[in-house]
């Protein structure tokens, strides 16, 4: 139910009561955080990347810390689409006021198409987020996200079968993100999610080897916020589809900055690990910050940074 028009946002046919959702991979399928608060408070939920088959993920260590951020290489660990359809999505049905966005990943176009078709038929799935940008999985994932042609081809193929809007999650690990955004828009994407993590590495001084078993990991957290803001600012001026912005959001002021840059809604990732209550806290804090900065509604602020 939308009871506050100031916070309500509409993107690609989704009507959200507020613009704040947890980001994929940082919130599992919601179960763990439902122990802390009522998930109906969220604008939406983006669940963990789902693949055709079960994936066991990468060896540990899977995370390393950096100033203001963290590197992770989980490796898309998930129970596979059958189990997600059987247990995880039905679990979320109890939250009647919670639009569910499923992040879909794969190694071949056929995987993405098959998984997208299946999950888009689930009764409580409102949208798909195509993960063409995971930096931690070999062969696939990120290769789709770094080539405009392949990204467009994949988007078009998934659009053909999906019963719900399709957001494409873009990689920041490219020379120019704009042509990729334009390619997926031309291929029929309903929206964009940006940005995924930045590829990074840390070494262990004692072992002289990378801390993360995978070698490289994806950098997230407040350290990457300026990169996300810059990319959203660039892309939002070149496309006509809405953007879910993400990358280091920690508080309501960060949300306003992302919206100003051109995002229509936001996802909060790493900050959930620091404070499990961060999403509801941001939602509670948002109106006060809007008053402070003279913002009448979230919708009117979209792209105010360049309009």
């Amino acid at each position, binding site marked *: 139910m939308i009871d506050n028009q100031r916070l309500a946002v509409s993107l690609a046919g989704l009507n959200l009561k507020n613009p704040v959702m947890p980001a994929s*991979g*940082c*919130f*599992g399928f919601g*179960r*763990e*955080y439902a*122990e*802390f608060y009522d998930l109906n408070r969220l604008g939406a939920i983006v669940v963990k990347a789902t693949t055709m088959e*079960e994936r*066991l*993920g990468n060896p*540990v*260590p*899977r*995370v*390393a*810390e950096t*100033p*203001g*951020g*963290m590197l*992770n290489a*989980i490796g898309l*660990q998930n*129970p596979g689409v059958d*189990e997600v359809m059987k247990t995880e999505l039905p679990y979320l049905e109890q939250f009647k006021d919670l639009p569910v966005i499923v992040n879909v990943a794969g190694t071949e176009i056929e995987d993405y198409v098959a998984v997208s078709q299946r999950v888009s038929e689930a009764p409580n799935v409102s949208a798909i987020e195509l993960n063409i940008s995971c930096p931690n999985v070999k062969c696939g994932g990120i290769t789709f996200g770094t080539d405009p042609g392949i990204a467009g081809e994949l988007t078009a193929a998934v659009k053909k079968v999906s019963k719900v809007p399709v957001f494409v999650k873009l990689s920041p690990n490219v020379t120019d993100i704009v042509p990729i955004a334009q390619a997926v828009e031309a291929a029929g994407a309903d929206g964009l999610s940006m940005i995924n993590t930045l590829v990074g590495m840390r070494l262990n001084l004692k072992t002289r080897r990378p801390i993360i078993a995978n070698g490289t990991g994806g950098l997230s*957290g*407040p350290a990457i916020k300026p990169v996300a803001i810059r990319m959203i600012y660039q892309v939002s001026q070149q496309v006509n589809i809405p953007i879910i912005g993400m990358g280091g959001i*920690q508080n309501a002021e960060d949300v306003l900055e992302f919206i100003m840059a051109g995002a229509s809604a936001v996802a909060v990732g*790493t900050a*959930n*690990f*620091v*404070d*499990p*209550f961060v999403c509801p806290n941001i939602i509670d804090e948002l109106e006060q910050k809007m008053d402070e900065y003279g913002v009448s509604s979230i919708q009117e602020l979209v792209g105010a940074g360049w309009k």
Partner: protein
Amino acid sequence: MRKGMATVLSNQQIVDRVFRLEVQGDLIGEMTWPGQFVHVRCGTGIDPLLRRPISICDVNVEEKILTMVYRVEGHGTKILSESVPGQPLDLLGPLGQGFPIDERKEGEHALLIGGGIGVPPLYYLGKELVKRGVKVTYVIGFGTASQVILEDELQSVGTTYVVTMDGSAGEKGLVTDVLNEGFNLEDSAWDVLYSCGPLPMLKALQDRFQPTGKEGYLSLEQRMGCGVGACLACVCQTQSPENGKKYRKVCSDGPVFPLGEVKL
């Protein structure tokens, strides 16, 4: 599972790099299960960004006082070591599955084996076992005499054997060596094993006692992200992936696992 603020009562170095931190706060009243842990925010800024999992060494449930004994390993624990009385500390917890103790019967004999900074949670465990009428024997191992912690506290709970790798305190060798000699700790002398310590020690215990069918529980340590089971940073593989469960999460399925459940 809660998040809350506690107030630092004291924070003192007990041996090189190891500190004893006492804090008081409402959520500590829930910390009744030995072997669970708290996820501690070190400092208030974004560096370090993530919390640090710290074991529960002792709890005074009535007065809501938690004792943590931790070793300075890096940036986060260094900041924690600078805590001063009166300072607020942001805690998430108690988290995870602790040492199973409800099935213990009066008169049983529990063997508690700790290594290094894995020793602290065995103090609270031992006290709770003794409350249930269980006899407790400790074997605690360290590199050298200057690293020995909590010996007096543990002696007050049960007979405590100290082992050091260089022989500078107690017996020389590894904790497993003591089980071979004349300490009356042969397999038939005890009913259940509880252990926390470095991975090689836990592996040695699992390799030795899993084939015997003895009941035992091991507490694991792993780099964590969220601490509540969502991020999948701290997984370990199961030995027999029955029921499709091929992995366990150290933070939420553990940190304590029955002997033989996970691969070490």
